[in-house]
Structures are given as C-alpha cells and as structure tokens.
C-alpha cells in the first residue's frame, strides 16, 4: 500500500476555486477524462451539497502493460462523492476506481478550504491511497502510480488555473457586452437632441 499526500495554495478565494473545481473537466491538462456525469445530488439538512459523480477516463497504456494485465480496453471508471459546505467554506471530494478493482485500488481525497491566514487564498490538501493486489511487483507498481498521481496533481492544479481564467474571461466579456449595449442607445439619445 502506498500513501501519497500534498498541499498546495491557490492565489484565489475559496468561492472562485470551488466553482472552478466543480467545472474542472474538460481541460487541456487532463485529456484522459472524457466523460463526467452526475449520478445524484442533494442538499442535506445542514445546507451542504452532496454530489455523486461518475468520471469516465481513457488512458494510454503501453502495449506491453496491456498484455501483462490482460486487458484490451483502457476505459476506467471512477466514482466520486463530494460535499460543499458553503457556511464552513469547505469542498471535499473523495474518489475511488470502480474498474479493475480486482487489480488495483486508488482512493483519492481532496479538500479545498480558505487559507487560515489569508482569505484571498485557498489551500488544497490532497491524499491518495494506492494498493496493487496480488502480484509480486506490487510495491514497485505502487511507487510508479504514486509518481503518476503526483504528476497528475500538478496538471490538475494547472487545470484549475486554466478553468479560473476561462470563467473570469467569460465574466469580463459579459460585462463588456453589457457596457456596449448601454453605450449605443445613450449615444443615440445625445445625437438626437
């Protein structure tokens, strides 16, 4: 079993990061995720939003690895359960693979919270528990997977920045359009006088 953990600080407030995290896919840094579906969603009695989602991923397995583990399809499904607490300002996501469970178990947990000293920043703590089953190379493969998770975590953070930029651009474009539509009639009113 391999445990991997990391912490990262985003220079954006918690609401911005949470909105982006909710719309993380698609993004150019994680091209392997090709489908995201919401299976269930509800608000509990304490006002927290619970969501269960299914992530469909396709990843490039080298041919040798394919023959080693005896699979031809590389489509992997991940089930994720998340909770957003708008009062406590926390967004926690837990995910686990539901494909190839006889071979491997990858559990991930991500928590986004405002930075304790700076409300304009957000702290992401991320943990993964990796377990490869039943073969003698397990600790080596677990190490390899931990490295992949670490690399993907870096891409995931870049992806978050990308989504945040995209959302901000959309807001600016909306504002510019609103200003443009106000300016035309005002200009017309002035020239009409």
């Amino acid at each position, binding site marked *: 079993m391999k445990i991997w953990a990391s912490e990262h600080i985003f220079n954006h407030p918690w*609401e911005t990061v*949470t*909105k982006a995290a*909710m*719309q993380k*896919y*698609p993004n150019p840094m994680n091209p392997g995720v*090709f*489908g*995201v*579906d*919401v*299976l269930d*969603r509800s*608000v509990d009695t304490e*006002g927290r*939003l619970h969501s269960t989602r*299914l992530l*469909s991923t396709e990843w490039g397995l080298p041919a040798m690895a394919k023959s080693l583990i005896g699979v031809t399809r590389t489509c992997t*499904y991940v*089930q994720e*359960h998340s909770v*957003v607490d*708008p*009062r406590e300002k926390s967004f926690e996501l*837990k*995910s*686990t693979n*539901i*494909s*190839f*469970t*006889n071979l491997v*178990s990858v*559990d991930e*947990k991500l928590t986004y919270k405002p930075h304790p000293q700076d409300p304009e920043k957000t702290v992401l703590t991320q943990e993964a*528990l990796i377990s490869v089953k039943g073969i003698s190379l397990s600790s080596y493969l677990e190490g390899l997977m931990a490295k992949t998770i670490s690399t993907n975590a870096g891409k995931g953070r870049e992806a978050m920045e990308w989504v945040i930029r995209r959302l901000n651009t959309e807001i600016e474009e909306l504002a510019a359009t609103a200003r443009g539509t106000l300016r035309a009639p005002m200009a017309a009113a002035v020239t009409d006088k």
Partner: protein
Amino acid sequence: MNSVGEACTDLKRDYDQCFNRWFADKFLKGDRSGDPCTETFREYQRCVQKAIREKDIPVDGVEFMGPNKDKPES
C-alpha cells in the same frame, strides 16, 4: 464535456448550465431558495442511468478510503 452515454450529452449540457448558474449565484452565496434544476436533472438522469446499465458500469455502494473495505471485483 461529454456524458458517458453519448445520447445524453445535450441533456447533460442543459443540466450543467442550470446547475453551474444556481451553484455560483445562489448556493455559494447562502441563498437557500429551491433548486431550479430538478426537471432538467430528472430527464438527464433517466438517460444516464440507462446508459450505465447498458454499458454495465459497476456503480453504487462504494466506500472511500476504508482500510478494510472490500470493493466488489470487476
């Protein structure tokens, strides 16, 4: 972003648009008024659940990060 069920992608987009707007403008701002997306969600769900059954995707009843957890084999 696509849905796991190709036929569901448009329904998913409609639901996502509704949800993202409600999430940003209401939910995160502490507005506890009702969810305007229940109808679009229901339609989208009907489609997705069907796709999941057809593709035999082993969803359901999974526990996260339990050391003694036994995942159903797939």
